[in-house]
């Protein structure tokens, strides 16, 4: 039993949820989509960012989004270092890299999980802010403000990244490296440095995404496992290399989940989203918007 009203509401909430998914996936869209790094530890870094935001919010009462911005430079540096390590160990050494790269990042993700537990304990944490817990009345509907915040941030991030990659010099260099590394090298630019920079940006984005994560729902140390599937699903469905595609794919996913939930029941929602992914991959392996 459902009405048009409910359905419409589901679509709206789905778009907002999708934007949240996009925000947490867009970093992966750069690191995996453009740089081909099988960054399974992306959600683990995301959770670390959330805990960083929690720490600043809990100890110093800093607004979570602001805290997210504050840790962004730190994460940028972490990204630079991480890519260097990855490059020296894997990309240099050759063909077997994919499987071993995945295993490497899994190992890193586990180590991160344990370190978080040792520092913060296993209980879940969340933040407080003025916009958490309130809703905005929009006609018949009440929309949680934190969802709107997620929507705004995700939109902002995506647009910012997309513009950066297509309009600025370094941005286009990153694009170029993804397309044809040899050619770039022949033109005198250093592809490794560019990739390193890109990975730094992808990790920096996680700072803000982590803030979003803990604004939307409480976090706990093993939360990264739940997001591995989701983030890769979004990025792969979008098609590698497309930032705006990530936003679109994430919204499609979010809407599919909420509509299925409203019409058929919540327990089938994840099955549907992943079935969609399988469908897209089987029919169009390069993703919806891929190159």
């Amino acid at each position, binding site marked *: 039993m459902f009405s048009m009203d409910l359905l419409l509401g589901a679509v709206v909430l789905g778009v907002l949820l999708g934007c949240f998914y996009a925000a947490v996936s867009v970093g992966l869209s750069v690191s995996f989509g453009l740089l081909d790094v099988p960054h399974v530890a992306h959600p683990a870094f995301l959770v670390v960012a959330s805990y960083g935001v929690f720490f600043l919010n809990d100890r110093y009462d800093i607004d979570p989004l602001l805290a997210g911005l504050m840790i962004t430079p730190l994460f940028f540096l972490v990204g630079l270092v991480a890519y260097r390590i990855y490059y020296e160990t894997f990309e240099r050494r050759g063909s077997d890299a994919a499987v071993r790269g995945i295993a490497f990042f899994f190992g890193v993700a586990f180590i991160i999980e*344990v370190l978080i537990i040792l520092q913060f304990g296993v209980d879940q944490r969340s933040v407080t802010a003025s916009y958490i817990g309130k809703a905005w009345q929009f006609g018949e509907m009440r929309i949680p403000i934190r969802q709107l915040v997620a929507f705004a941030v995700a939109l902002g991030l995506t647009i910012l990244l997309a513009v950066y990659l297509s309009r600025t010099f370094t941005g286009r260099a990153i694009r170029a490296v993804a397309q044809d590394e040899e050619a770039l090298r022949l033109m005198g630019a250093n592809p490794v440095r560019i990739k390193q920079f890109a990975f730094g940006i992808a990790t920096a984005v996680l700072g803000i995404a982590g803030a979003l994560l803990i604004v939307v729902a409480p976090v706990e140390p093993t939360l990264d496992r739940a997001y591995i599937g989701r983030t890769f699903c979004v990025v792969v469905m979008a098609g590698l290399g497309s930032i705006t595609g990530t936003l679109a794919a994430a919204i499609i996913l979010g809407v599919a989940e909420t509509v299925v939930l409203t019409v058929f029941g919540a327990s089938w929602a994840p099955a549907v989203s992943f079935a969609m992914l399988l469908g897209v991959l089987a029919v169009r392996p390069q993703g919806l918007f891929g190159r």
Partner: protein
Amino acid sequence: MTTRRDSMVFWLGVIVFLAAVAAMTQIVRNEYPFFAGYVILQFIALAVAWSILGGYAGYVNFGTNAFFGVGVYTAVALFKAFGAPLAVQIAAAAVVGMLLGLALGLLTLRMRGIFFSIATIALAIIIETSVMNWRFVGGAAGIQLQRPAVMPPFDSYVKMLCFVQALLVVIAVGTARYIQNSRIGRGLQALRDDELAAECTGVPTLRLKLLACVISGALISAAGAPAAMYLQYADPSSAFNLNYSVSVLAMSLIGGTAHWIGPVLGAIVLGVTQQLLAVTISSEVNVLVLGIMLVLFVVGAPKGIIGLLLPRYRLRAGGKP
């Protein structure tokens, strides 16, 4: 081409192994070694089975937990509906695993590398969700089962399960060894090294890939089926635990994927470590150790343990058994 002598040595080893396990079940009074032994043997079987697709063909299956869970729940369903005996449960689980492997292979025909892996994650979630909604086997609430009486010559059900799992290990290893030394193995290796080149030289890559999916899937599900009777309890979060996917991947990589002995070694090393760590007081240490071992091996010993032990070992047609 394996020599006759190599084959004889192998099968002799198998007979000795099975005889030893059987003897233990008659001699050792204490039940604990069989509980722990079951878990380690189970992981050996899983790692070897996984390696057929992941090691030989290079297609990394993240959905091991789905095949495992499907094996468990096939056993549960048959047991609950017909009181089916263990052998039937395992056989049926193998069939279902085969079908699932076939479905996976067909679905991912055109996918390569990490796309395949992501597809396996997707498949795993779909299957877990479906089983969670299946009221007959208890759904998310879980189901408790009552074991039937144990048959002689075993005096305890766990001892029998341990022996059964030893048999499954032998089947898995035998299959892996056969594949490794046959044309199938060489084809898979060609596929793994460069799929495009292999296709160009006439290797039937799609068919080989399907074959690997089917065999790997059947073996994983078969190894999962006895778990229903081992625990006498099943619930989706336990049966489809991500830990199975990650541990098996780790075991194969740590052991080395070039030869069937790699996953065996990796499973023994990691399995024993995990059992030992489970019985010491430190808790998070287990996960930390797994993470560190993964990172160390992948960075420092890319060919795994077998790479360390035999530095000049290469997988070739006619390699050792």
